[in-house]
C-alpha cells in the first residue's frame, strides 16, 4: 500500500487558502494511483503532527505544496511530521534541487519519502505556461505576448527568488513568448512597474504562489494598477499604460499543479506513470493545441 500526503500551509482566517490543496488531492485521488491521498496542514486540520496517523499505508510519499525550499520545507514540516534523523543535508540541495529523502516517522513507524517542494520542480514551468493558456483562453498563447512570473523576493527567503528566476529562465528557453521577465513584490524589478519591462502589448502575469490570498488578490492587482481598490475587481485583460495585462492569479490554483505533485512522488519512487499522463490531459481547461 502506498499513500500520498500533500502538506500545505493552510490558514486560520481564510477558507480559500486550502481549496487548491484539496482540489489537487481530489484530482490525484480520482486517478487511483495511490491507495490513499490525504492532506495535512500547518494551520488547519489534520495538522502536520497528526496527518500521518490518519494514513493506513506503511509507505507514504509526502509532497510539500510550497513554492520554495526554506523554513517550512527544511524545518517545520520534517519536525512536525517527526521524521527521525532529518537533516537538511539529506536533500543535498543548492536551494532548487531538493528531490527526496527517505525517513521513518517516529510516532507511526511509517516509511516517509519526503519530497522537495512543488515550486522548484521543473514541471512547475509547464504549470506557469498552462496558467497563461487558461487565463487567455488560448492553448497556443505566446506570440505577441510578454510573460511575467511574480514572486515575493528575497526579503524572507533567498531561495524564493531562485525559484522565480529558474522558471523565468525555463520559460524564456521555450522561446514561446516574445519576452519573459521575473518580477518581485518587495525588490527590483518590481511588479508595480510591470509595463516598463515589456515591449509587447499583451502581458500575462502569473504569481508563483500556492494559493490566492492577500498578496495575489489585493496587493499585486493594486500594485500593477489593474484597479484602485481590489474590492471593486478588475478586468482580464486590464488596460494599463497602453498594455493589456492578463493577470492569472496564483499559479497554485491551476489544475495542472496536481501533475507537479505526482512528478515529485514519482521522482521519489512512486510508480504512477499512468496517473501522470491522465492528470496532464484532464486538467487542461483550453482545447489541446492542434485540436
Amino acid at each position, binding site marked *: 500500500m502506498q499513500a500520498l500526503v500533500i502538506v500545505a500551509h493552510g490558514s*486560520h482566517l481564510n477558507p480559500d487558502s486550502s481549496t487548491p490543496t*484539496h482540489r489537487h488531492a481530489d484530482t490525484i485521488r480520482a486517478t487511483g494511483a495511490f491507495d490513499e491521498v490525504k492532506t495535512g496542514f500547518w*494551520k488547519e486540520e489534520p495538522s502536520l503532527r497528526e496527518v500521518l496517523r*490518519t494514513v493506513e499505508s506503511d509507505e507514504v510519499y509526502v509532497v510539500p505544496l510550497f513554492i520554495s525550499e526554506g523554513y517550512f520545507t527544511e524545518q517545520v514540516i520534517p519536525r512536525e511530521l517527526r521524521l527521525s534523523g532529518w537533516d537538511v543535508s539529506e536533500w543535498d540541495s543548492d536551494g532548487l534541487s531538493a528531490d527526496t529523502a527517505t525517513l521513518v516517522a517516529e510516532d507511526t513507524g511509517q516509511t516517509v519519502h519526503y519530497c522537495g517542494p512543488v515550486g522548484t520542480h521543473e514541471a512547475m514551468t509547464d504549470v506557469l505556461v498552462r496558467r497563461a493558456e487558461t487565463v487567455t483562453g488560448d492553448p497556443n498563447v505566446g506570440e505577441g505576448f510578454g510573460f511575467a512570473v511574480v514572486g515575493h523576493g528575497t526579503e524572507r527567503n533567498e531561495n524564493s527568488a531562485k525559484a522565480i528566476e529558474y522558471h523565468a529562465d525555463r520559460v524564456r528557453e521555450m522561446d514561446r513568448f516574445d519576452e519573459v521577465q521575473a518580477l518581485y513584490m518587495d525588490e527590483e524589478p518590481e511588479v508595480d512597474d510591470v509595463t516598463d519591462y515589456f515591449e509587447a502589448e499583451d502581458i500575462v502575469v502569473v504569481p508563483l504562489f500556492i494559493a490566492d490570498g492577500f498578496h495575489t488578490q489585493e496587493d499585486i492587482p493594486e500594485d500593477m494598477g489593474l484597479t484602485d481598490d481590489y474590492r471593486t475587481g478588475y478586468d482580464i485583460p486590464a488596460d494599463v499604460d497602453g498594455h493589456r495585462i492578463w493577470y492569472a492569479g496564483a499559479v497554485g490554483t491551476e489544475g495542472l499543479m496536481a501533475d507537479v505533485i505526482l512528478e515529485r512522488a514519482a521522482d521519489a519512487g512512486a510508480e504512477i506513470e499512468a496517473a501522470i499522463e491522465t492528470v496532464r490531459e484532464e486538467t487542461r481547461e483550453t482545447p489541446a493545441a492542434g485540436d
Partner: protein
Amino acid sequence: MTDVHDEQLDALLARLESDADPVEFDGLFADVDTNADASDDGGSYTLDVASSDERHENLSESAFRSVASDDLVAPYVTNWYYWEEVVGDRGRHRRAFLRHAEAASEHSVSDRYAALRSGMHTEWGEVLVTATLGEDGQRRYEIRHTEDRDAEADDLDTYHDPLDARDIATYDERGRYRPLKTAPSLVSGWVFPDLDGRDAVETLDVLYPASVANWNLEREGDLDVTHWHETAERQTGIYGVVEDLPGEAVDWMAEACCVDSQCLKRREWEYDEGHELDADGGTGAFPCREPCSLVVAAARKWTRLEEEETHSYEFELTPSEKEQVEEIVDAAADGRTEEIREADVYEGANRYRARFLRAKRFDEDGNLSGTPTHPEDHEADAEHDDGH
C-alpha cells in the same frame, strides 16, 4: 434472517485450508483436520457457535456448508466474513472504531445482529453514527448531526461522498469560517444515509480530523500526549516566543479555548507532566493530545500581551456602567452578542446600550473616560499584528 452467500462460505473454507489454526472469532469456531482421510464416512470439518450447545463435528464440506447456513449459525459466519474479509485489519483505527460502533466487545453476535437491525448509535462530537445490518451481514452506517436525531432523512440534505463533508465542516450556520473543526459549531441539516465502513470512518475523519486515530490510540493505552511546555519549546520562528507565556496564563488560555463550550476534544495535555492545569479538560468522546495550532497562534498574542505591566487608571463610571462593562465582556466571551435583541435595552451588551456608553464615556480618541492608554505617550502606535 441472515443468508450466507457461497462467496462467504468459500472464503471461510479457503481460510481454513490456508491456515493451520482454527477460526475463532466472535463466538464462531471452525476447523478442518487436513490429515483426516477423505474416504472416511465422516468429514474433517468442525463448526460451533457460542449461542448453540451443539458442536458439529466430522462434517463433510457439503454438510459444513449446510450447517453454516443454518439460521442460528449463519450470523456468526457472515459476521466473521464482514470483520475478517471486508474490514480486515489493515486499518487498525478504522477497525477499532467500527467494532466500537456495535459494541462488539460487549455483546454476542446474535445480540448485536438483533440490535443492529434497529440501529446502534454512537455519538462522536456533534454527530451521530448509526450502524445497521445490511444484506448478508454487511454493515451500513448513517451519519447525521445529533440535532437531527429525530429528523426524517428525506428532510435532510443527502450526501454519499465522504469528501462532501469538507463543505459541511467549513462554515458555521452564520457562514463564518470554522478554522477549528472540533468547535461545537457544526451545521445540521444533512445526512450520509448509507456508507460502508471505510467511508463512514473517512467521513468522521473529515468532520473531526484524526479523531478516530487518537481515540483508538488512547483506548489502546498508546496516546502520545504532548504537554504545553514541550509544545512551546518545539516552536520556532514567530512562535518561538510562546515559551515565555507564564504558567498561570496557560491556565487562563486553556479555560478560554479548550473547554467543552469551545472545543469538543477532551484536553489530555497539561502544563507539563507534573503540573496539571486547573481548567476543565472536558468530556468529549475523543482526546486532544497537544495544543493545536490555534492555541499556539493565540498564545503568541497572549505572550506579547502578558509582557505588559499593569497600570493604575482612574475611570469615572456609575455602578451600572461598571456592571455593563462586565456584561459586555461576558457577552463577547460567550459569543452572545448576535443573540441580544435590538430593542432589549435591559441587556448591558445591547447595541444601543453600548453605543450610549460610548457616546457618554469615550472622548474623540476613543479613550474610556477620556483617560489615555499611555498617559506618557499619547501618540503610542497601535500594535499591528499580522499573525494568522
